[in-house]
């Protein structure tokens, strides 16, 4: 989709002019136009002026160039996103989208790395009955791309994943592995957070328990002979 690999904004401007092949109908700027003309010009005119004295917003221009990236300070992997699809265009497009979205969320990203393709093949007889000599081959090739987030804020990573889910592309599956890092005295912080967790779990844990009459004294014979099993015996 993004065949234009030029890096500089100048080059992008040139290419934009090529892309928009609308003749520049604007009059000479030295002659001021009469005031009767509407302030907002026609679309053709506005687009024609794009290469000359106006430009697209930077964010729109960026689409025509390689995705911008943040630089990873420590290079600590935080999230692995794997994209899978049966179509090259879809997975390429969405990987590019994911990388761009990561830039605007201030997340350093590496990738997309093309992972090995998964090729599944099936050979089936053409006929519905016998005739094994005449068979047909089918295959399904799964293409994979890996996008890795490095030393990002966990909340920003969650926001990024949520954004990608919201704008999920058709025919592209996503799978994310997230790693969270904590300081060395993680035990202490876990101990501190325990009372709060217990409070929230209390209502759930209250539903667990043992029957009062459930004691070791009760024999297995009783279990086997009790109503539930006896009922089943007549089945």
């Amino acid at each position, binding site marked *: 989709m993004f065949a234009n690999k030029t890096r500089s904004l100048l080059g992008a401007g040139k290419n934009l002019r090529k892309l928009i092949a609308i003749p520049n109908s604007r009059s000479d700027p030295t002659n001021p136009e009469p005031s009767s003309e509407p302030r907002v010009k026609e679309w053709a005119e506005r687009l024609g002026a794009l290469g000359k004295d106006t430009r697209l917003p930077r964010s729109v221009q960026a689409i025509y160039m390689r995705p911008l990236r943040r630089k990873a300070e420590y290079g600590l992997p935080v999230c692995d996103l794997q994209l899978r699809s*049966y*179509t090259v265009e879809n997975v390429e497009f969405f990987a590019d989208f994911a990388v761009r979205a990561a830039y605007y969320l201030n997340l350093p990203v590496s990738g997309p790395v093309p992972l090995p393709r998964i090729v599944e093949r*099936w050979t089936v007889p053409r006929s519905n009955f016998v005739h094994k000599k005449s068979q047909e*081959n089918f*295959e399904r090739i*799964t293409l994979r791309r890996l996008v890795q987030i490095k030393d990002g804020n966990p909340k920003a990573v969650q926001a990024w994943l949520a954004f990608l889910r919201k704008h999920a592309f058709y025919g592209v599956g996503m799978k994310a592995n997230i790693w969270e890092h904590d300081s060395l005295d993680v035990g202490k912080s876990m101990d501190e957070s325990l009372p709060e967790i217990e409070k929230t779990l209390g209502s759930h844990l209250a539903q667990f328990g043992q029957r009062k009459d459930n004691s070791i004294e009760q024999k297995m014979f009783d279990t*086997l002979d009790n109503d539930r*099993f006896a009922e*089943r*015996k007549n089945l």
Partner: protein
Amino acid sequence: MSKAASLFHPKRLNLSGFVNTRVIRDNNKRMAVEQHEPERQALRYMIRNTSLPGRVRAQAQLQLSQMHSYTRPTQVKNRCVASGHVRSVFRDFRINRFQFRMQALSGHLPGVKKASW
């Protein structure tokens, strides 16, 4: 003391797609297996637990052998969801080889194409 399979018939047919008698029967078996799995496992545990008295284990064996065959997990067989066929059913698509070919050729299976290499 009946061992009728009709015990496992649901009141209403809870199946969609291709349905015939054998598909319904298989579905009944699946439901029976699911429902009776805890009982089977409890009995199996009693039978294998050597710390239990022999009589308990023998009784559990008897009860397990008396359970209906439909509650046995080995009774379940994968069937083609498009034709009800039992043989050569692909696990990936849950359809029979011939249905697979027809659907692949008509493009109903995402990503499956004719291969040549």
